[in-house]
């Protein structure tokens, strides 16, 4: 059992099905004396009782399912120790169907042992797993050529496989240096050099593992703190507004100036909060913590807090990435997925496939129009709102992402670089729309003259239950009674509240904003003053609505806390303000702006 004072390392064992991963683990557990007392005897006795020859792999096969099918289904975890440190060993399934389990295991590993059967040679998953280890960012890798006993411990076989595999790795720009001939069943080169393999005088497995170095702490890197949540437990008598999350990289101190991305809002660290701890002045990478800020700024979960004095993360809507796909459905164009990068969740579309790498044959396929299950592809992704990220080579924690399709994590990826170009899906959409629009003979000016106002979209926003809809209705009534061409669109609030059962809230909200923008464009083109209320609209959503509604203007009325960073709000109202008073304030503003005959209403 691991001890707190001793160093620990997570090791994943990967390789093709039946190449002997479980046997190797069984050996490592038994030969390092790491098995619970009596376990070896118990399994041996059970085998004897069932007239079955004992195998070391049985030690791991604690589950009935596995034993029935004879394959490791999931990433079982077990422990073994050397003199130097404790190892948490992750056995990853070799069967292709369980790639997502392999990835799950390997993603938390610091080192990997890749097992290749000397007798069978390099197989599809020997290659795929070799590629995935590098993809997942594992730096310490040992390639074990197993079952040497089946090839009479032949030096020639070992070096043949070593050469073939090294050639393959070269093609994908990966270099692994540790190759070890072993026979797990016989215990050769596991915890000591074997006499059966006299021609090999490199390191045996345990020695190779002990030589692996732990990754250096990330305290010195640029500071990145993805915001998980903002807490305010007012009902429990706690007035602190705490920005909670985990410091992924770097170090921060009380008094440091910070910047939130993508909103670019700035503040200073007032305090570092913790339960059952004395006052803290510093937070370092790896810590789950929380901060109070000196100024009251409104930020949202998902933003990345950086240090104002350091190079910041990129903010963009497009980036180039390597993606591996695990979904049952392929990754396709014209479909909106959910991207999770650090703590940000945003809608995303596939913008371009650069090439697809068939990992089994390692052939690069151009002109493919989708990414199939188990493919690895270089792609350009476009998010429907700006996201903050880093190149994976700079800061891995904010340079990796997953793609969610229909509730399931279906792909993982690493960000290579931001892509800066002028094209965005929104712009292209508007270009198409305006191009195809058959214009009416009645000009907007004529309509304005007739209705005595400029066609306008008025958005009433603010938190849920702040009386937005009441105000909207009262305003509609006032304008209507004044003879204006006005309409309150009451369905949008429901659509945008996120209450309804839809596949994904993030995607549904983005789609509804899009729909509302389209509707606004048509309705304001008819000369209408369109009123609508939308809960808690964010700056990017507002940008999308304004853009879609162009050339007609969009006015913003905010009820309650104003979360916008600059002068985006035209009229500010208090929470649950009396509708009559609210309408008077709004009318005063409209008289100055969109109403062409202000005296008419006075």
């Amino acid at each position, binding site marked *: *059992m691991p001890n707190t004072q001793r160093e620990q390392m997570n090791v994943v064992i990967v390789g093709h099905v039946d190449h002997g991963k479980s046997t190797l683990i069984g050996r490592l557990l038994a030969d390092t004396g790491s098995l619970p007392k009596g376990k070896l005897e118990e399994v041996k006795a059970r085998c004897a009782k069932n007239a079955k020859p004992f195998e070391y792999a049985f030690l791991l096969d604690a589950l009935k399912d596995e034993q029935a099918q004879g394959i490791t289904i999931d990433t079982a975890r077990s422990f073994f120790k050397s003199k130097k440190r404790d190892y948490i060993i992750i056995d990853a399934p070799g069967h292709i169907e369980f790639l997502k389990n392999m*990835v799950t295991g390997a993603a938390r590993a610091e080192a990997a042992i890749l097992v290749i059967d000397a007798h069978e040679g390099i197989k599809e998953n020997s290659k795929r797993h070799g590629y995935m280890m590098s993809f997942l960012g594992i730096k310490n890798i040992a390639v074990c050529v197993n079952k040497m006993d089946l090839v009479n411990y032949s030096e020639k076989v070992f070096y043949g496989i070593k050469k073939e595999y090294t050639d393959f790795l070269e093609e994908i720009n990966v270099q692994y240096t540790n190759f070890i001939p072993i026979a797990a069943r016989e215990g050769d080169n596991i915890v000591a050099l074997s006499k059966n393999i006299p021609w090999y005088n490199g390191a045996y497995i345990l020695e190779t593992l002990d030589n692996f170095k732990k990754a250096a702490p990330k305290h010195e890197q640029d500071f990145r703190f993805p915001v998980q949540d903002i807490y305010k437990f007012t009902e429990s008598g706690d007035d602190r507004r705490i920005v909670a999350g*985990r410091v992924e990289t770097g170090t921060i101190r009380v008094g440091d100036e910070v910047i939130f991305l993508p909103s670019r809002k700035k503040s200073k660290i007032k305090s570092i909060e913790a*339960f059952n701890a004395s006052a803290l002045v510093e937070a370092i990478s790896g810590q*789950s913590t929380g901060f109070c800020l000196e100024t009251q700024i409104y930020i949202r*979960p998902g933003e990345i807090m950086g240090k104002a004095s350091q190079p910041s993360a990129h903010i963009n809507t497009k980036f180039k990435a390597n993606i591996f796909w695990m979904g049952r459905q392929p990754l396709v164009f014209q479909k909106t997925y*959910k991207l999770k990068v650090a703590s940000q969740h945003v809608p995303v579309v596939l913008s371009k496939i650069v090439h697809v790498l068939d990992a089994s044959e390692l052939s690069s396929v151009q002109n493919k129009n989708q990414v199939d299950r188990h493919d690895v592809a270089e792609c350009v992704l476009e998010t429907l709102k700006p996201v903050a990220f880093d190149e994976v080579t700079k800061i891995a924690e904010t340079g990796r992402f997953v793609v969610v399709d229909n*509730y399931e994590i279906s792909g993982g990826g690493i960000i290579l670089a931001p892509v800066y170009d002028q094209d965005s899906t929104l712009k292209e959409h508007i270009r198409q729309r305006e191009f195809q629009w058959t214009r009416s003979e009645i000009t907007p000016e004529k309509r304005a003259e007739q209705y005595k106002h400029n066609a306008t979209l008025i958005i009433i926003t603010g938190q849920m239950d702040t009386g937005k809809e009441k105000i909207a209705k009262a305003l509609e009534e006032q304008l209507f009674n004044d003879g204006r061409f006005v309409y309150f669109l009451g369905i949008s609030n429901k659509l945008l509240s996120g209450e309804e059962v839809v596949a994904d809230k993030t995607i549904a909200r983005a789609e509804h904003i899009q729909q509302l923008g389209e509707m606004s464009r048509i309705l304001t083109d008819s000369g209408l003053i369109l009123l609508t209320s939308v809960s808690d609209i964010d700056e990017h959503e507002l940008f999308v609505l304004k853009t879609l509604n162009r050339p007609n203007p969009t006015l913003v009325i905010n009820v309650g806390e104003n979360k916008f960073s600059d002068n985006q709000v035209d009229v500010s109202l208090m929470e649950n303000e009396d509708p009559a008073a609210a309408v008077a304030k709004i009318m005063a503003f409209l008289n100055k702006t969109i109403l062409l005959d202000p005296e008419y209403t006075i």
Partner: protein
Amino acid sequence: MKAGMDKLDSLEAQSVFILREAYREFKSLAMLWSIGKDSTVLLWLARKAFFGHVPFPLVHIDTSFKIPEMIQYRDKLAKEWKLNMVYGQNKEALEAKKTFPDGAIDRLSCCKALKSEALKHTLAGDWPRYRLDHLSGKYVLDQNKEPYTGVIVGARADEEGSRSKERYFSPRDKNSDWDIGDQPPELWNQFKTDFAPGTHVRIHPLLDWTELNIWEYIERENIPIISLYFDQGHGQRYRSLGCYPCTFPVESTAKNVHEIVEELRTGKFANIAERSGRAQDKEDWGGLETLRRGGYM
């Protein structure tokens, strides 16, 4: 040279991260509290994650055969820490005396009825939930019948074979069934937090902890722990808590947390399974996994 993080710091940081992900993603969230050391550590970690608060209900399944001190301890902490405490039980089976202690059924069937079934229906909200009313200090019928869609559980990977296969976020289908062969991928701290209506997700913040880590953390944080774990002078203590007819104390003279840590680290329990005192595990090979597939925690 900056002070780094030790093993317990890292475990704590990961558990807190998971708890916050759960709180962010699940509207109807609950934490199972068995009163044992693991889920009490989990409760402590929740207070760390939410800066002294526990912003979701704690659910206890009361089989009525729990060791009486467990219920006293539960209510004492619930009042002291202002917890939103909820319990549920299989009233029908208890009233009909269809239990193992009543001699009606075997151990596994009893576990299934009093724990798995009670848990399933308490989570779903179709059996009554009893909530602690802090004003009167008594349990009242809970008006909230919403199914809990996220359920935080204190399972550890090292406890037993089947638990080593768990995810941090592990989906259960409409029947609370666990499809062990088809689990979602988890990588780079991204978990399955999207789910189809009718399903729910079990969340396991303690997956990476060992029994020893748990006790070391209890010692470090000075977490109040139920005295049943300590030898009261009879040379016996509980190593794992459950129903009294099926849980037996182990021979041990460990009288406090520190002595338990020493005992686990170097002493007689260093290589003996923790659940060795839990009879239902021995009913058939893999008894716990059979229970877990059917919704046992």
